[in-house]
């Protein structure tokens, strides 16, 4: 009990810190044209590889410096947040919808439904996920919707596995048996009685998956297989930064810090939310 109380105590601070960063990044993404100090695509060879504002040789207005084509790094990060959040929300929701539905069905009905769904999950788990993602985007053609589809197609198993196991646990509980005796139908029990009890896990997984989607998008951009190369993406900036690492370290450091903060925030936010809503911990 002691540990539960400690984790609940700590969950408040985590929730606010993680939520605060995510809100900040989301607002920057939504109001990107207002927030970004420069045009993210404007190249200026007079201003190539400018260092960040505290170093000598920096230029006012280019707070985090510029890349090898003289494009403003801060503006590119702000606009890159748009792609990151669109992919995070769309891909995670799609994966959640498919995976949770199949997980509920497999866990609640068992039998053949469970056997078939579990076998498909086994096949999916035998693919190296990054290679699978790269392959799917190569096949579907680069673009925002391809990236979203690829992530959803690969990561639905994460939801399916967890929700299946949780549903199986819930299905054995007395309240399910009582509902059956009371004359409720099986699908009605699944949706009205079991589903609400696995929602905290779904919420935590959804938040975690958003962070994973951001990473996968960055990896795809890194191997030049995400959206069109003109639009700034965090992974694209990282790929440039990796190339000019000895001349301009800031081109790699700032997108990397942004990515790490975002991924940590998504996973911590999900955990903290789960701790807050979980009736057992509460």
């Amino acid at each position: 009990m002691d540990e539960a109380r400690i984790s609940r105590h700590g969950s408040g601070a985590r929730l606010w810190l993680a939520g605060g960063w995510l809100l900040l990044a989301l607002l920057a993404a939504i109001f990107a044209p207002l927030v970004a100090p420069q045009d993210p695509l404007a190249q200026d060879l007079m201003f190539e590889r400018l260092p960040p504002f505290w170093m000598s040789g920096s230029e006012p207005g280019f707070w985090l410096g510029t890349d090898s084509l003289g494009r403003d790094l801060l503006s590119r990060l702000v606009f890159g947040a748009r792609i990151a959040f669109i992919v995070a929300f769309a891909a995670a929701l799609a994966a959640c919808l498919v995976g949770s539905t199949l997980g509920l069905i497999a866990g609640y009905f068992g039998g053949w439904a469970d056997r078939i769904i579990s076998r498909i999950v086994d096949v999916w788990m035998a693919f190296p996920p990054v290679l699978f993602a790269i392959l799917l985007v190569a096949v579907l053609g680069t673009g925002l919707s391809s990236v979203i589809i690829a992530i959803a197609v690969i990561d639905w198993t994460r939801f399916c596995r967890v929700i299946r196991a949780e549903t199986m646990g819930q299905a054995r509980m007395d309240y399910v048996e009582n509902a059956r005796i009371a004359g409720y139908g099986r699908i009605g029990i699944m949706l009205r009685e079991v589903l609400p009890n696995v929602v905290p896990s779904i919420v935590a997984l959804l938040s975690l998956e958003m962070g994973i989607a951001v990473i996968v998008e960055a990896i795809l951009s890194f191997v030049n297989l995400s959206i069109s190369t003109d639009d700034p993406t965090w992974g694209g900036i990282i790929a440039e930064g990796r190339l000019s690492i000895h001349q301009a370290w800031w081109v790699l450091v700032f997108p990397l810090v942004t990515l790490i903060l975002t991924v940590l925030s998504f996973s911590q936010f999900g955990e903290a939310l789960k701790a807050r809503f979980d009736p057992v911990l509460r």
Partner: protein
Amino acid sequence: MLLQRFLIRLLTMAITLFGVAVVVFVVIRVAPGDPIAMMLPPGATDADIARLRALYGLDKTIVEQFFIWLSGVVRGDFGTSISLRQDVLGLVFNRLPATLELAIVALLMALAIGGTTAILGARERGTAVEAGIDIASGAALSIPDFLWGLVLILLFGVLVPVFDISGRVSPQLDLPFVTQFYLFESLARLRFDLTKDLLGHMLMPAIALALPLAAIISQLLKQSLKEVLDLDYVVLARVKGFSETQVILREALKNAALPTLTLVGVQFTFLIGGTVIVERLFSYEGLGNMAIDAVINRDLPLIQGIVLVFALLFVLINLAVDMMYALLNPRLRHG
């Protein structure tokens, strides 16, 4: 009992691999680009195109192509790479050892780091040391291998350039190896100068792969150790005068390790999956790096071959862990 369990696992393994083969085959065949078009010089005639399509079997229906390919695979013939114009199996076997060495070194590191921090955390339970270990493992777990790789490149490739950040071995070295297992062979030949160079290249990608797994091992093993440490037989050992470290190493660890072991198996397959992008990041010449090139070049036979080899590796690891668990767990052994 054990044999029956083994045979059932073998059967599901075969079904899984067949499923992987079908999925990858179908996915690749719906690709819009024509792989043949990339091989031809400008000005090739329609007859040339038709001849090449026939050569790679691309003129038949998808179902026919699948079974021709599958019957080849069963006989060990994975076809010919379109972009490299070499035997696929030969290419894969040439690169697989590099990836296996990297994965094994990463696994050993994860076990060492995770095991040490778990034992330390269990011994110092309830103190600031344990809290520090919890925070570190939480961060290590949340940050994926791709980002760890970039952080390491910045720290030890640029800020304090102590390690090589690209390749598998320094190109100017003369390599006497007959196998592709460079690291293991350098140890066997007592050529420690080469071992040092190889490890210098391998260390950073291996750490990037190891950190998330180390965190999982640390958390799970610490939890099991703490549970075991309250049991009567451990308390008895403590009463007999053993120190806390002795109690953990001699009494508790053996019983606490089993739940961790099953998890390490699945997590090891995740680690191998991670080699794909980490190898790319460090320009390490392994299977994953070749796979990304194969996808970019639309090299269908090579992609199929690599994906299938990865899948085979994954199911074999799961099988091995399952069998090890059955052998070590007395409840299953006598069940």
